[in-house]
């Protein structure tokens, strides 16, 4: 059982979880949304700066939560920077599958996302911990809501 825990809490996750990147507010963001998981009380705000060409120039988040949600938010903001809004939507879908589908293979994703999904694959350990899937996906749901013009999203 300890192996599954080690698989979940890999070094990369512990590193991002304890020292999250882009963990600050963005002034005058193009999009912003607040995400909340009412079951556990975890809450975070995602900020996106998007240029006229639809490219995400900057991304950040504020909030606190478990190691999984902090690491996921941290890695998400790194991955989506420089990508288009359409890319980010697509990545969200692939990441969601990665965290929930046992038979998901990285090759199924768009070739342009291969490197990013390879990085995000460290979070796929949540598949063995169903109640923790929402921890990993909350930041992505929140980003998705922000890009869709919603102010708030609540999982469950």
């Amino acid at each position: 059982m300890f192996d599954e825990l080690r698989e979940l809490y890999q070094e990369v996750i512990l590193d991002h979880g304890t020292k999250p990147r882009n963990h600050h507010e963005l002034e005058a963001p193009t999009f912003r949304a607040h995400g909340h998981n009412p079951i556990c009380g975890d809450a975070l705000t995602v900020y996106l700066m998007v240029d006229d060409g639809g490219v995400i120039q900057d991304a950040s988040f504020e909030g606190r939560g478990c190691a999984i949600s902090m690491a996921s938010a941290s890695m998400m903001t790194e991955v989506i920077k420089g990508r288009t809004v359409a890319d980010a939507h697509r990545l969200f879908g692939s990441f969601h599958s990665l965290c929930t589908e046992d038979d998901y293979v990285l090759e199924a994703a768009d070739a342009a996302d291969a490197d990013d999904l390879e990085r995000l694959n460290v979070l796929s350990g949540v598949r063995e911990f169903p109640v923790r899937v929402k921890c990993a996906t909350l930041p992505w749901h929140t980003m998705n809501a922000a890009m869709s013009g919603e102010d708030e999203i609540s999982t469950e």
Partner: protein
Amino acid sequence: MSEVIETSDVGAGDNSMLAFDVERVRADFPILEQTVYGKPLVYLDNAASSQKPRQVIEAMNQAYETYYSNVHRGVHRLSQLSTDHFEAARQKAASFLNAASEKEIVFTRGATEAINLVATCYGRAFLQAGDEIVISHMEHHSNIVPWQLLRDQIGIELKVVPIDDDGQLMFEDYERLLSPRTKMVAMTHVSNALGSIVPIKDVIARAHEMGAAVLVDGCQAVPHMKVDVQDLDADFYVFSSHKLYGPTGIGVLYGKSDLLNAMPPYQGGGEMITTVTFEHSGYKSAPHRFEAGTPAIVEAIGLGTAIDYVTAIGMDNITAHESGLLAYATERLSQIPGLEIHGRAREKASIVAFVMKSAHAHDIGTIVDRAGVAVRAGHHCAQPVMARYGVSATARASFGIYNRRQEVDVLAAAIGQVREIFG
């Protein structure tokens, strides 16, 4: 009542005549034989809901298999038997709380519905704009939100008694908040998030001096200690069955007769009326006035059996056993570097909430779960308490009658694994 099956001789591990023996109690709980991820189950989430002894399970099965029918309706044999058992459960609840009469016991779906019932019916009859309701900072959401709903409907004000850093009610602040405008004090007897025992008898006495009624949320008190509503002089006292080793879907509202009978009904329907015409309906007196529709019959009978069960063991024995567990758990967990216990009131029930410097409560919960240990990780439906201590979540180990000292050791070892991973 001659054919009512006597359940008072329910063999609670034969503990009634002996010193408390946790192994005999454990033998009554089939679920404790389970393994989780190959590890023996260590169930420390009793404050959320407790497990059920076979006596309760069997009593409910027996009801369904031998005498189940609707209550208070039929002239037939089974209806009479069901009614007798159902009303016997009410009598047991009355004795358990030392109510003056079983007519003061209203069956509800649980404590939440009981509080909503009082907020709605007492509020509608006796409160008006400008009146104040006093609650504490450590209420469960179920003793906050019903009063906020009432506030938004009729314009009352909510006042909140602060708690100190140890999680104790700040009594002088409570006294200062009381005024002639205070019409209701709604307070927990034991905090579900911190374990603090509130000096509820003193709280009630002060409220009565001001002419305010008092509702006590007893969910976390009745599983752990003897409660006497007449000694406390509580106006309303509520608890849920499922935290007292009984089934879900049933709870108790105790209310003084004169108050209950002065309150309008909660829901309309069958069983709560005397006569119905299209012009007018007459209502029964309490408790039936508040029990519209077919009640949770078998659940009430299960609750009655759970009450028999803990009564046979003896509430004093239970308190002593759990106090030992609390002291040992507090000592063991306090020794773990980076671990901080939330709630260090002098008077506590067997609840230990904690946080760790290195790991979030959810990560603690996930890791100890793999060691077979069930704890709650989250806000415990008490978000104001979390805000008070500046955390979003805590991990909480809560102990019941079947827990053992060695289970505290398993928890401590599992927390050791948290430290291995998170440092």
